[in-house]
Structures are given as structure tokens and as C-alpha cells.
């Protein structure tokens, strides 16, 4: 009896470990179950990706776009999410932020790695340089090396900071479900239309002003949209899942 119980416990623990390692939701999981897991575990790029794929399968364009954006924001190196989102956006004529050199950087090196290594090198260079300033005799070679390490660290840190999507795209929002949204030249219904955006398109929020928000579109135009048609890519409470 005791051996049987031990065996059952071992089997259960092994199954839990495997499930945690693979991290894949069970095939029978529904969107609501993924959302529940997000609530329980907190933001996860993999869960957001699974949620986006499920939303895409269900035909929820806005939900899919939002969760693809969140997955990529949390893990900019997740190529599978980038590829699927690129194809999804082109199929549905969704405006997305133009790809920049920062995206190329973070798809190779995670911005947190750049930030950490840059910070480390920067401080090492700074301490080294401070030591060299007052030490005698001075070696020009050592001083030059300290300056180089300091500059290299600063450069890597700056690159990581610029490329970190959670900082750079902190004001990104998605057009919510419904009819096409007109970006207006002024914060009034009778203003002229600058451009029309399909639901799911990403806009950069510049200045919220009550019921109207001044935004930039993926094409570079600027204008006003109704605030209630915008969904923040970074949720107000980071642990919250999609609020579609």
C-alpha cells in the first residue's frame, strides 16, 4: 500500500514537472482557460502567444492583434510570434508599427541582456577609471582601456534602453472592435478625417485629453481618436489578461 502511494505521488510529480517544463496548454484549453492561467501566473509571452493564436482561430482580430503585440513586447526574440503576427497583420490589413533597427537588435539579443551587460561594463569602466585617476604611476594603456570599457558599457546600455519595447512602446494602443476608426484632425466629430484605421491597428498615444486622444498612426500621420476605442497594449494592471 505504501509503495503504491509512493508510486502514485512520483507519477503525479513527474507529470507536473513535465507540464511545467513544456509550458504548453493542453489542447482542450479554451481562451477563457488561458486567460485564467494568465491571471494566476502573471504576464507570460508564451501564454499571450497561445491566447493570440486562439483568438485568431476564433476570428477575433482585435484580441489576436493585442495579444500578439503583448507576447512580442514581453519577448521580442520570439520569432514564431513575430512571423505569425506579421502574416496575420498583412492578411487583415492591420496597421502595425514599422519595423526598425531596434527590432532587429532585440530579435538577436534580448534587451535585458544588453541592459545588464551594458550596466555591468559601464560601472566596471567607471570604477576602473576612478581608480586610475588617482593611482600613480598612471599607465595610459590602462586609462584608455578603462575609458573604452566605460563607453562600451554605456553604448550597450543605451542600445538596450532604446530597444526595450516595454519602454519604447509603452504608449502603444490598439484600435478596439467595431467600425473603422477615423483619425480626425481635431478633437471633434466634425473635424476632417486624416486617415481611417481598421480595428486591431496599433497607434502610439501622444496625449490623452478626456474623451479624445492624440495619436500617431503606423504611417506617421497624427490625429485624434475617441479614447474609448483604444486598448492599451500594456494593461493597467500588468497581471490582467486581455480586456476585449
Amino acid at each position: 500500500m505504501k509503495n503504491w502511494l509512493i508510486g502514485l505521488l512520483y507519477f503525479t510529480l513527474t507529470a507536473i514537472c513535465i507540464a511545467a517544463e513544456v509550458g504548453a496548454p493542453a489542447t482542450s484549453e479554451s481562451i477563457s482557460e488561458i486567460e485564467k492561467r494568465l491571471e494566476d501566473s502573471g504576464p507570460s509571452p508564451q501564454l499571450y502567444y497561445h491566447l493570440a493564436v486562439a483568438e485568431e482561430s476564433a476570428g477575433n482580430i482585435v484580441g489576436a492583434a493585442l495579444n500578439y503585440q503583448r507576447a512580442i513586447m514581453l519577448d521580442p526574440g520570439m520569432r514564431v510570434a513575430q512571423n505569425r503576427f506579421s502574416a496575420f497583420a498583412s492578411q487583415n490589413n492591420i496597421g502595425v508599427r514599422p519595423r526598425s533597427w531596434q527590432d532587429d537588435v532585440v530579435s538577436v539579443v534580448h534587451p535585458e541582456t544588453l541592459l545588464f551587460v551594458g550596466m555591468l561594463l559601464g560601472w566596471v569602466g567607471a570604477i576602473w577609471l576612478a581608480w586610475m585617476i588617482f593611482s600613480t604611476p598612471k599607465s595610459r594603456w590602462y586609462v584608455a582601456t578603462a575609458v573604452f570599457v566605460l563607453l562600451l558599457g554605456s553604448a550597450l546600455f543605451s542600445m538596450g534602453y532604446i530597444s526595450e519595447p516595454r519602454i519604447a512602446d509603452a504608449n502603444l494602443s490598439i484600435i478596439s472592435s467595431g467600425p473603422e476608426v477615423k483619425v480626425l484632425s481635431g478633437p471633434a466629430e466634425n473635424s476632417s478625417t486624416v486617415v481611417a484605421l481598421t480595428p486591431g491597428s496599433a497607434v502610439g498615444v501622444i496625449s490623452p485629453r478626456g474623451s479624445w486622444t492624440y495619436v500617431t498612426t503606423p504611417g506617421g500621420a497624427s490625429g485624434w481618436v475617441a479614447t474609448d476605442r483604444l486598448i492599451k497594449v500594456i494593461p493597467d494592471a500588468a497581471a490582467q489578461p486581455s480586456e476585449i
Partner: protein
Amino acid sequence: MNTSNPFKRSGALRTAATTFLLLCACTTLLHAAVNAQLSRSQTSVGVPVQLLVEVEGSTNVVLPDVIPVDGLQIQRTGQQTRVEIINFRMKTSAVYSYTVYPSREGVFEIPSIDVTVDGKPVQTRAVRLQVDAGSPGVPVQRALPVQPGQGANPQGLQAQSLPPGTAAPGEEGQLAFAELIMPKSEVFVGEMVPVEVRFFFHQGYQFEIQGQRPSISGEGFTVQRLPDPERGEQRIGNDGYHVLSFRTAITPLKSGQIEVPPVTLSALTRVPMSTSGNIDDIFEQFFGGSGFPGMGQARELAISTEPAQLTVKPLPKDGRPTNFAGAVGNFKLSAVAAPLKVGAGEPVTLTVTVAGRGNFDAMGDPTLVGDQGWSSYPPTQTFQADDPIGLSGEKNFDFALVAREARDATPGAEFSFFNPESEKYVTVSAPPVAVQAEASSAASDPATANARPTDAPTPGASDAAAAPSPQANESAGPEVTRSFSPWIRSGAAWVLNGVVAIAVMALLLAGWIRRRSATDAGKSQQRKRERSALIARAAKAGDDQFPDAVVAVLKFDADSTGVLGAWDRVDALQSQSEHAASAVRLREFLSAIDESRFSGGGVSQSKQAISTAKAEIVEILKNVCP
């Protein structure tokens, strides 16, 4: 309002990036740009125009002297070098001018010019020149000449109209006059009409132009911005005239009869005061028409053209293509694509170029044809003008295309316009460009192929949706949890960086203190050496020099301790219990010195006292070191 564009990252971030890029590479500053432009894009047979080739960033330029074009004689005639310093950055540019002399009518394309800049070959873009058969001076709109004796106000001007169609712009002897030149009087709605306004000023008088440039405004048409005028000279009969020529273009917006109102330029001049005819004759004989320099009456002239009439015909409705979007003129279409081979989901840029002559401002986008399997986005536009008023040039439309399916060619492009010469609509097309584009991963991925979105989401569908495929799960990797707030903005990161920053500051402070201490100790040693030298000098001094040597030591000590003189130093010593006795002895010694110097009697006793106390005083000085 915060106008930062989150798509283009914040200003602070951009500054950091710029700093980094400047640290890494300064070579981009050395980039040279080459541009070619005609002084006017339309002329007549026998009337030369200028082709200007501007090279920015270098003056080490090699250009051909002659450009062979059938029907045109193009020869290099001049060069100007310009150096500007803007925001502490020096910008050099050289403008090479060619004279283009048309020998027959037609539309000519001046090909790309091979320019060698700093040893590197660069090409200008091709520009087009339309050469008409007629004279450029006809038809001439009537002008308002001003006679030398006429008043300043426009009401006082007696309009003396030139006969319409006259080639000569003014009559002999006029002080100033203007003319408006348009190549045609019947145009279509939307057709850009080049306009030239010429102001003639008699060379026998001095003129000062008032205000800026003239303005053309009126109802029913728009006007391009007036560029800087061209200056020239012209002889009419026996009189020479300075000519200011403004070139622009107007675009009618509605059909019917529209009027181009008078174009006015104000100028100030000085005309001879009215005197008797005989005196005038004398001045005429000696000084010409203007009398004494500086003499005469200041007159303000308002030099105006006469209003011009333009008949505007509506665009025909018959034969109007469905994709016609307002372009009026004569255009050609071409297309190129880049890159020619792309992977799944990667965009191809199809650049469709509309080149020619017409209303580039008002034209719509070309349309893509045969774009099945492609997703396209609204194009971005760039325009390069061949002339200062933008009548001729080329406009590029960059379409971003993403292949939904594997494709071996881009879509073709079509562009429709109305040609006012033939009075017909024309549709030009550019063929598809061969490319290799892979299908986007979503289309090739069976998981997504089954998950194509429907036109409208079904209510409640999300909960009932199928879960992602196992393939997708494996690709996504193991599940990890991350915060939407990066750790660099967390409290722990601030604390960590703060601690290290404090450590660095402490290190710098410790080093500074150490260096300063080392410096203070060195100074102290130096003072000790100097004091020892003074005492040694006192010990070796004779009886006469000894008092001064002792005073020198005491003054040195006074400087070191911040008191004024030898007596003060002794007072200070007396306040210290361990040196009180020494101070008393030193005071007696100093009194003896003063006595020996200033007292009439007992001098020999004082000198003797000094002599006997020498060894004792030296010993005291050694012991009272501050």
C-alpha cells in the same frame, strides 16, 4: 502638448542613440549629394535655359564640359562655390551651370550626368525640357508703363497699354512697366499654366524695390509659390532696362472665365523736378535724363500688370477612366522593386514613378493591378522637381507589399491622366516586376491556414475557440513569466545602481583626499626645510647680523601660524604654557635688540647681551617650531 511620436521612440532615447552613433561613425557626415535642376522646364527654340548641377559636401568635383543631346546644345558655362556654417557645421556646395540651347522643338530628356565627387562616381537624375516652336515673349499681356514725369500713386498713372500680341514688351522711354506672360489663354481645369511676370526698370534711373516679392492671388485658381526672381537686361529701342522676372504656375480650379488680377510691385525712384523746358534741355545735354545724382523728387511707383483673362474648360466626362484621380498633364510611368527576393512575411517595396509635366500636387496614387496574393499598404510619396516651380519632375510612390502566397512578380501599376494637348484621357501602365516572394508563414502553416479569420467575429466564439496547435506550442518555448515593467525600472535596479554610484563617488572622494593629504604633507616638509635653513643662517651669522636673522625666523613662524610679526609670534608663544619661558627669554632678547638700535646709552651692554645670548636663542628657536 507632448508631441513625441512613440513610433519613432522618445526624444531622449533618440538623443542617446545619436550620441552613440556619433561615437561609432562620423563618416556619414562626409556624404555628398548631387542634384540637377533646370532654371525652367519649358522654353522655345533658340531661347537658352540653364541647367544647374549642385554638389553638396564637396568641391572636388569633375563634370563633363559638354552633354550630348540631339536637338540641344549643352555646354558648361560657369561655377559657383558656396560655404555656409550652420550650427558650427560647415557645409560646402558647388553649383555648376550649363547653358542649354534648344535648336528644335520637342520634349527632351537630358540624361543623367556622370559626376565624380572626391574620386567616387555619382549620377544626377535625368531631367526633361519642353521646347516649343513659338517665341517665349508671346502672347504678351498688356502692361502699365510709367513715364519719367508721372506721379507715384497708381491713380495718377495713365495706363498706356501695349497692343496685345506685341513682341516688344514696352515702349521706348518708359520709366518702368510690367508684363504678364502666359503661353496659352485656354486651359482645362487642373492644368498647370506657367506664368512669367516681368518688371522692367529703366537703366537711367535708380530704383529701390519696396517690400518683398509680388503676389498673385485671385478666385478660381491656385498659384505656386514665387521663387526668387531672375535678373537680366533688355534693350528696347535706344533704352536699356533692368528686368526682374518671376516665374510661377497657376492651376484653375473651376471652369469658366477667370481673371488673373494685376500683379503689382512697388519701387522707389528719384525723378527730376519739373523745371522750365530750357533748363531741362541743358540737364539733358550734360547729365542725361536723370539730372544731378541725388537730386530730384522721390517717387514711389506701383508697377502693375494688366489683368489677364483665362478661359477654363471642364474636363470631359466621356472616356474618363475609373482610376482617374485628377492628374492633368503628360506623364510616363515606370516601376522598380526592391528587394527582389524576400522570405515569408517580409515586405517588398514597389516604387512606382510618375515622371513628366503637370499638376503633381493634385494627382492621386497609381493603382496596382494583378495584386492577388499580395497585401499592399497606402504608398509614401516623394517628389523631385526639375524646375523651381515644380511644373516638371518625377513623383515616386513607394508601395509596401507583403506576399500572402508565393509570388514570382509584383503587381503591375496603372496611372490615368488627362492630356490637355491631345484633350484625351490617357492610361499608362508599368509591367509587373519579377521578384521571388515566399508565402507568409501564416498561409503556409496548416495551423493558421485552418484559422483564417472570418469577416465578423461570432458572439461567444472566443470561448468556444479551438486551442492552438501543438506545433505552435512547441515553437513558443517553455512558459516563463515576465513583467510589463522592465527590471531596469524596478526599485532593486535603482538601489543597485545607487549603491554602485555611491561607491564610485566614495572612491573618487578617497582619492582626492589622499592626494590632498599628500600635498599638505609635502608643503609642511618644505616649510620645515626653509625654517631649518633660516635657523642655520642665524647660527652662523655674526653679531651684527644675528638680530635680523632671529627676527627673520620669528617672522617666518608668524607667517606659518597666521600672526602679523615677530612680537606677535612671541605673544603667541607666551600663551602656550610649554613655551612661556622661551617666550620671556625671546621678549628680553628682542627688547635688547631694540635698545641697541634706538637707545642713546648702554649700547655696548646691549650688544654684549646679544652676543652672549646667541647660542641660547638659537636653541630656543629650534624648540619653538610651530
